[in-house]
């Protein structure tokens, strides 16, 4: 796996816990949505750096009260054709003003990089065989957009009437 953040490959410093393992002291951990629902109060009190992992099936709005306590939201794409994560990311960014990391993981393609960035993803868990330089090229394909979105770039209607 290659973790790409802000256009640069970095080490993943997070420990992604299953639903049974106790949080190691001092670590930055992510837990599943189910575990978050069960243990959020205890986790917040434990003082570790926290993140949560969502899938499209999870009721994402239930974490929105806790966004201040979360440094990372990981959104899983079980298939690259499953577009729910795009809406979840926009809601977190645009409605709730979430400024922590929003990471895409799972089955994600180079040709989706630009769409995902526009929806507010700023980190990507790339499959091991991914050509990082090629992935970054994908971000440059389309330089204009008709719709305002989470990336806060000016849309074409805004440019037209600036």
């Amino acid at each position, binding site marked *: 796996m290659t973790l790409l953040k802000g256009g640069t490959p970095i080490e993943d410093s997070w420990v992604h816990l299953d639903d049974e393992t106790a949080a190691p002291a001092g670590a930055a951990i992510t837990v599943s949505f189910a575990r978050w629902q069960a243990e959020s109060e205890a986790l917040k009190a434990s003082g570790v750096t926290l993140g949560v992992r969502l899938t*499209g099936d999870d009721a994402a709005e239930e974490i929105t009260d806790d966004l201040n306590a979360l440094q990372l939201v990981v959104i899983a794409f079980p298939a*690259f054709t499953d577009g729910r994560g795009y809406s979840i990311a926009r809601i977190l960014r645009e409605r709730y003003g979430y400024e922590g990391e929003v990471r895409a993981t799972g089955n994600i393609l180079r040709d989706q990089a630009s769409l995902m960035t526009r929806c507010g993803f700023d980190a990507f868990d790339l499959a091991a065989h991914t050509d990082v330089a090629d992935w970054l090229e994908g971000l440059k394909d389309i330089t204009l957009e008709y*719709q305002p979105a989470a990336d806060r770039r000016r849309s074409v209607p805004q440019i037209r*009437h600036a």
Partner: protein
Amino acid sequence: MYSYDQYDTQLVNERVAQFRDQVQRRLDGRLSEEEFRPLRLLNGLYLQLHAYMLRVAVPYGTLSSAQLRMLAQIARRYDRGYGHFTTRQNIQYNWTKLEDAPDILADLASVEMHAIQTSGNTIRNTTSDPYAGVAAEELEDPRVYCEIIRQWSTLHPEFTFLPRKFKIAVTASPNDRAAVKVHDIGIAIRKNAEGETGFEILVGGGLGRTPMVGKTIRDFLPKEHLLSYLEAILRVYNLNGRRDNKYKARIKILVHDLGTDAFREQVDAEWENLRGKGPELPPAEMERIRAFFAPPEYEKPGSNHQDYIEKLRTNAGFAEWVRANVVEHKQNGYAIVNISLKPEGGIPGDATAVQMDSVADLAEKYSMAEIRVTHQQNLVLPNVRQADLFVMWEELRNQGLATNNIGLISDIIACPGLDYCGLATARSIPVAQRISTRFADLKRQHDLGELQLKISGCINACGHHHVGHIGILGVDRNNEEYYQITLGGRADENAAIGKIIGRAFSSDDVVDAVETVVNTYVDQRQDDERFIDTYERIGPKPFKEALYDAA
């Protein structure tokens, strides 16, 4: 009509370059077919039975002469000299090559056209009334909003991987010619009590294996909120539409399962967060787009208008063509002219490059260089002076384009069927051809009056059989083609889903069965009743008896 500015041009050019790169990566192995398939579909490129099929968008059915000439040139240069106009106002080329596709798209971009989102699980070409802007009874030109939706939906970052395809249609006329009730979202421009125009919003209509008529979820949406409201609907669908079963993934199933009221509540809750924000256009942008659709300068009827009246009186063939194919224009002295792509025994919706060039020339000469594509798979010249009708009719006759059967039984909608389509279970085109030939007598057709016959080659219903007055669905039974007949469907403002009349007919028997249905109507009709009126009055029983009891 709308004309691109530098931003529209740049965006479409960038999309062409992006697709060229995607094709190259497929050819050199960096993309697998599984990865490439959704990417090519997002640009309308299908792998069909015999070759790649490219579907090109004709946004809301409006074309310039220059654009139609380019469509002709593409047919000649990259295909076999013809194209097929579809029920969603697009054109399809049946014999394209993958390696040519980027060049075709570049040619299209040079005349402000594209194939963006003509397939894939995303927002498709927004369709509209083919008489938009010229219909006598419309409230305003719906294409202003179609263009607004076109731009908003183009490469939308959030809605490119929806549960399933998504189709929007807009009408501004009480006579719905855009089939808005059988679209995922139907938009009908309405006037409220204060005399302001706004939108009635319908959702959850559609055909396919579970046909449904759309439900109104908002009676009157103020215009400025169009895009925020659409974004709210799409978001509710994207998050909650079923992804476990592609046959239950359309928005109609979500609306049906939740119930209209619960669906509306979810949309309204989402809309609260979007209303007055991001996606909504600044008034100046709405005005900029509206200006492109301002009515042209019409001439006052001249002295030669009298010649037209005279020709109508003295030339029976011309008068019949006018009666069937020419429609009242909002401007005195002008006419809307339908060009039938349904000659006797022909392939519904097909046009040759030669014919496309001819229509482009005629439009330039007589219709302010503008052409429309209809969801009935015909063409329209929207702005013809009545005084020019006679000479134009003569020119149309020379090109085999003067068939005067608009709205009649041989004006058949048919999908490509098993002759071309990888999904089909039976052929559609040969059945359409045989019916067209059986009813070749135009006098008989005119006597039968308005009769919409629609043929699909499989349950996906691209031929709209569910909403045909007479619908025909081709099925495969032990490797033989059978055809099921439905009656009583309609796609207009009183949209209804047709009912299956009984067991299916063999390919040999289906044309006789259609004739039996038609004869039953003739026996039973009262006064000037249309087929659909008679059917709605007497119900299926007499038709059923005529079809099955004699045997």
